[in-house]
């Protein structure tokens, strides 16, 4: 249903989206002369790093059990 089926590439696209929000917040902080935007970018980056660590740990565990990272294979919640 999505563009890609490899779970690792989906993680990387999530990082892309988070970085786009970072750039937008920094641009607004530059325009309104407020350092709070850059502080929030700092926190978003911290949360993204923690999320990548835990998400990749989950991915490794899934790979150990199912031997593939194809997300079309994991629609067991659907039925």
């Amino acid at each position, binding site marked *: 249903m999505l563009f890609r089926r490899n779970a690792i590439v989906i993680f*990387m696209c999530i990082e*892309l989206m988070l*970085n786009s929000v970072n*750039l937008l917040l*920094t641009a607004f902080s*530059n325009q309104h002369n407020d350092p709070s935007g*850059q502080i929030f970018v700092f926190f978003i980056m911290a949360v993204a790093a923690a999320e990548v660590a835990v998400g*990749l740990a989950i*991915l490794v565990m899934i790979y150990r059990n199912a031997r593939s990272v194809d997300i079309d294979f994991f629609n067991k919640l659907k039925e």
Partner: protein
Amino acid sequence: MIQYAFYILSALSVASALMTVFTRKPVYSVLYLIFFFFTLFGHYILLNAQFLAAVHLIVYAGAIMVLFLFIIMMLNLNKEIEPNKSVVAKFAAVISGGLLMIVVISAMKGVDHVALNHRSDIGLVETLGNVLYNKYMLPFEMVSVLFLTAIVGAVMLGKKEIK
């Protein structure tokens, strides 16, 4: 002159982000994403956010992408497993992604960009450190608790069960 640098940098960013999504091999995706982070470094320097630029480069391109490469190499995920989707599905995905862009562009259209008197020290470490430790002390401490949780969770999830 700076405008040309901005346009070239933006074109490189968008091109490398598109190549991240559309390339077939995951290792090429990671490499394009690392190049994207370098172009983002240039963007942050243009926006006078020097501390954020350095931290982004070190954390994202230096640590997180290396972690991705470790996982891809360890689990040997470089195979191309994508079948061809139907053209209708691709078209629907592009349209639904582009609607958000239209919303953001139309929200910014009638805004008059008033240039306030720019403080030139807004991106420096001292200013950001002052604001972070005075006004946002509680979220800072909560982020440390969050990191502790993430470390414990990642280690616990990565353990092999000894049967």
